[in-house]
């Protein structure tokens, strides 16, 4: 059962496992889309994929190249306008899971995809910006984050809060009137972090096989809380790896 696999493959498989069959999942492009399609192709055939381009219930037979790939419209239960997907579907809390990436992530699961370094008007790195993420983070039942763990990304404070996690700690989301539950889990190439029920601080609860707590701490820009006994995740199964690689191979084909 221990095929060779990369850290990214482990991360993607671990993320896919977090998606429950029959739930509705708002999917961003890149790692979230790959993981969501892996879940649909394995344990969650009735996972409802929702893309911000207006595709509800997309069932792509290859990995989409973008959130507006034609295969999403061709296979969706319904294609609606972009205002409709945000207003009628995301905003009222109909979507169970928001699946997001991050350029920076902090202790409270706040996400930055806007600017890094310098200040807003004169940044060191200008990133793409918010897209659908702020409202996905606000309104989905829960948020699953998939992101590679390193000191550049895992920072004490994000340079810009593009999408709110738990803000500055417990109670912030409620005070702001947000209806979604916030980040339930963060899946990285090293392991899994979950918010502590009391402090909301991300806590290392799982490690991928062969990864140590020290490695995870060294890749985190704050004093990382660690669960008493972090669980070691199951490595990717042969089937998971095969399906994932087959999916990756479809990218760009038609």
């Amino acid at each position, binding site marked *: 059962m221990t095929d060779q696999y990369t850290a990214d493959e482990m991360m993607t498989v671990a993320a896919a496992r977090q998606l429950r069959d029959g739930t509705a999942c708002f999917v961003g*492009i*890149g790692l979230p889309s790959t993981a969501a399609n892996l879940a649909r192709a394995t344990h969650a055939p009735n996972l409802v994929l929702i893309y*911000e*381009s*207006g*595709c509800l219930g997309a069932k792509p037979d290859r990995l989409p*190249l*973008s*959130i*507006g*790939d*034609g295969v*999403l*419209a061709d296979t969706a239960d319904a*294609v609606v*306008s*972009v*205002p409709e997907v*945000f*207003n009628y579907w*995301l*905003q009222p809390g109909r979507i169970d899971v928001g699946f997001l990436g991050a350029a920076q992530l902090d202790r409270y699961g706040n996400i930055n995809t*806007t600017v890094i370094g310098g200040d*807003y*008007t*004169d*940044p*060191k*790195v*200008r*990133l*793409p*910006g*918010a*897209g*659908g*993420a*702020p*409202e996905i983070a*606000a*309104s989905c039942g829960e948020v699953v984050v998939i992101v590679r763990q390193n000191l550049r990304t895992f920072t004490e404070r994000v340079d*810009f*809060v*593009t*999408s*709110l996690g738990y*803000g500055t700690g417990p109670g*912030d*989301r409620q005070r*702001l*009137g*947000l*209806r979604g539950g916030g980040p339930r889990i963060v899946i990285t190439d090293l392991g899994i972090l979950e918010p502590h029920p009391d402090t909301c601080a991300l806590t290392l609860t799982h490690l991928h096989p062969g990864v140590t707590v020290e490695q995870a701490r060294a890749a985190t820009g704050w004093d990382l809380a660690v669960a008493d006994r972090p669980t070691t995740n199951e490595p990717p199964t042969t089937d998971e790896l095969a399906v994932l690689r087959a999916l990756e191979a479809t990218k*760009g084909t*038609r």
Partner: protein
Amino acid sequence: MAKLVSLAEGVADLVRDGDVVALEGFTHLIPFAAGHEIIRQGRRDLTLVRMTPDIIYDQLIGAGCARRLVFSWGGNPGVGSLHRFRDAVQNAWPRPLELEEHSHAGMANRYVAGASGLPFAVLRGYTGTDLPRHTTNIRTIACPFTGEVLTAVPALRPDVTVVHAQRADRAGNVQMWGITGVQKEAVLAARRSLVTVEEVVDELVPVPGQVVLPGWAVTAVAEAPGGAHPSYAQSYSVRDNDFYVAWDAISRDRDTFQDWMRRQVLTSEAMV
């Protein structure tokens, strides 16, 4: 009734220096040909509006057409960052670019308000983020029934919206299908509109998932086959993904970019 024009005429008539211009399209049906014509005609000081500024906006920005960008996500979709956009923001090259930054939900609702003849829209949005700190066009509003505090954004009213569609008939009725994004709202929100189409036909045969814009709600239609390339037009073409990937290298360097623009955009003829 929309006038049928050539792309060059349409841009010359409808897109003016200093205008607020929205070229919309959500990964699908992006009006590249029209954007190239705007570059060829040398428009300046444009406020470019778009939810997802991508390669065509990278080109417009790199060519110096834009003074300001109103947007919610600026990237090379499925590939990465936009280097001309970055260079303008980080280094003011070829000129400074002011930003007004929103979320998708906010931008979509701003178009809806514009299309609806309302001065603003209400949404659950931006809450707890740093966007309102930098974007003055985000305010709060209280529900007059429950007192609940929500977010308000002002209507978008572009001087001109440009979109690409699959077909129009000779009366200028426009038909598009597949992912149609926010194009209807963007056209209806604008004072003027220009629609490029894959083909002008005698009759619009109904298609599942179609959005039809009546000709009397559109200013002008120009035939521009392949006008969405390298994006795609469902039932007509597929995305040229190699170009999206290649753009990363082309756009990274100012000279490479300018050379590419000279060869591929500035010296070629308008498509129609």
